[in-house]
């Protein structure tokens, strides 16, 4: 028997919902509402949703902004550019982050806290300042170019800043910890006797990894990929500071619509489509993670990921 009764439970369950409703759902609905309006000069700079007209109230909603999204291929190219940049950044974070997480999980218990601390250390400085620091490093007369020139390795400064390279570097640098931490979590929860059992049964190190370690750390990999991909898609600061004229990312487009063109409804429409495009894969991944045997071993059906895992269990060179 619980001591709190149904009122207490209502409060416990209700408070987080109230919070999410007030600070997430309501703002989202406001953005949705603005996306259906028309740009106008005034305060606020968009037409009202409901207005009094003559005898009664009339509703003004228009899908014109969404129609424009499909007509002008700038938006489509920006969405695709964001997806490509974020996808590449996610892949690079995974390639760099998995070995890093693996090494930390395998490090001696004396070293592990220090190594984890180093992964989290960048968060102690403002994100903006860290991105600015990259400008100082990458610009034509920046630290890196000067060092390379001084070493005689190059004779003219390399174009390191304001291009695709610097954006990708900024994304990978900024989001790497979000990949490392969940994978480290999965790997450190792994029972060491499982890889020993694999070795005992004749699996060489590479097959121990493919057959046991990798499939059992997939929840961490999936979580890490989403933690990197989702914010990277909407990233504005990095393409704005490190990107160049040909960097096209949707966060930048959204910013320009809002602050340069003062077209709030268009900016809102861009945001609504972005949220909708990301929500579906996130929901799917969430369901996948919830079905992990590590979470709740109750007899829930779990065909989808079971197929996935069984394949990796059999994988091997």
């Amino acid at each position: 028997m619980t001591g709190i009764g149904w009122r207490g439970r209502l409060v416990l369950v209700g408070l987080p919902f109230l919070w999410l409703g007030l600070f997430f759902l309501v703002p989202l609905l406001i953005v949705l509402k603005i996306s259906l309006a028309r740009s106008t000069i005034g305060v606020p700079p968009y037409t009202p949703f409901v207005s009094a007209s003559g005898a009664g109230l009339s509703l003004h909603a228009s899908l014109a902004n969404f129609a424009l999204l499909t007509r002008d291929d700038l938006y489509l190219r920006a969405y695709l550019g964001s997806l490509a940049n974020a996808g590449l950044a996610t892949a690079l974070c995974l390639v760099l982050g998995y070995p890093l997480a693996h090494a930390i999980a395998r490090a001696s218990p004396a070293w592990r806290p220090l190594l984890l601390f180093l992964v989290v250390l960048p968060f102690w400085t403002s994100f903006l300042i860290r991105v600015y620091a990259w400008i100082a490093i990458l610009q034509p007369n920046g630290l890196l170019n000067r060092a390379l020139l001084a070493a005689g390795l190059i004779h003219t400064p390399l174009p390191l800043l304001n291009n695709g390279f610097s954006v990708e570097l900024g994304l990978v640098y900024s989001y790497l910890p979000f990949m490392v931490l969940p994978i480290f979590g999965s790997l450190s929860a792994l029972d060491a006797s499982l890889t020993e059992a694999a070795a005992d049964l004749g699996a060489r190190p590479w097959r121990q990894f493919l057959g046991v370690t990798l499939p059992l750390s997939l929840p961490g990999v999936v979580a890490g990929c989403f933690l990197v991909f989702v914010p990277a898609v909407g990233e504005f600061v990095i393409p704005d500071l490190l990107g160049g004229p040909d960097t096209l990312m949707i966060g930048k487009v959204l910013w320009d619509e809002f602050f340069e063109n003062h077209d709030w409804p268009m900016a809102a429409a861009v945001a609504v489509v972005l949220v909708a495009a990301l929500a579906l894969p996130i929901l799917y991944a969430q369901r996948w993670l919830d079905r992990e045997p590590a979470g709740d071993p109750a007899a829930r059906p779990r065909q989808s990921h079971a197929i996935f895992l069984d394949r990796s269990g059999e994988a091997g060179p």
Partner: protein
Amino acid sequence: MALLEIAAVSKSFGATAAVDDVSLSIERGELFALLGPSGCGKTTLLRLIAGFDQPDRGRILVDGTDVTALPPYDRPVNMMFQSYALFPHLDVAANIAFGLRQERMERRRRAARVEEMLALVQMSDYARRRPHQLSGGQRQRVALARALAKMPKLLLLDEPLAALDRKLRDETRRELIAIQQRVGTTFLVVTHDQEEALGMASRVAVMNGGGLVQVGSPVEIYERPNSRFVAGFVGEVNLFEGEVVTADPGLALQVAGLNQPVPLPVAVIRSPGEAALVALRPERLRLSHERPAGFALTATVVAADYQGAVSVLRLASPAGLPLTVLLPSAAAAGFARGCAVWASWPPEDLVVIGR
């Protein structure tokens, strides 16, 4: 030729010698038990044989081949882990097939081998279950099947029954013996439970402080312990320590706390004045209300511990020397707490343990 030959193997972790100059040979087809308290080095020795750790000194030979430098995946040895270490993302059949897959066994032969292993441990109906859907006893069977699937020359079992409850443990122990006899594989069992070791193994090695203390059949280990440690670790024991004196006939032991010397077995050859330690198993003592013929001690029952079929009585001699007696409960009923009794035993039942 011995199947497993351990030659002067030592292994230290930092300053502690986990395994200290151990030599041991195990014959083909044996069910051998390594028995010792926790921290005695038995698990380290097992891990050295499996290849998870490398010895600092010494050699390990399996079936005549030196495997000391081989990694675990190249040794003809498999291990059943104490935690079972079943792969949680694979079902029972895939767990058993894991080792066969590594040696690239052809698909149909592999499936047949998995079937055979499932039948051996009576788990055929559970092939598609995941480990978390099995009970502890079922997991233990799967772990055994997985370790046996590759037909290792030597199977290492790390505390195979420790995770099971008592009733299941006895049942599983009998099954393990039956399976070992059927497959004929050499089993090396590590356990801290003396009952398990004595009841299962054809030979037992008792370990303490990183070294082997005694190696012998269960009967030898129990009836003729060679040290105070073995006598005390394997079962309960009464120990008498004292000085050898001449008696009529033969020799006796003058023990502090007893008002008369304890006659030693006729076969014992010692010089008077020498110190000696003798052991007496509690079930060898006899109790009576009247003084029996021959050697007997007076004592008082200070505690009676009823254990169902048998009872353990704690006695004290008038000078305070404690004695432990094991009797069938029916016989023990006549000796209540506080009762004065005569305790006696045939002198031949005493075992002289050097020191």
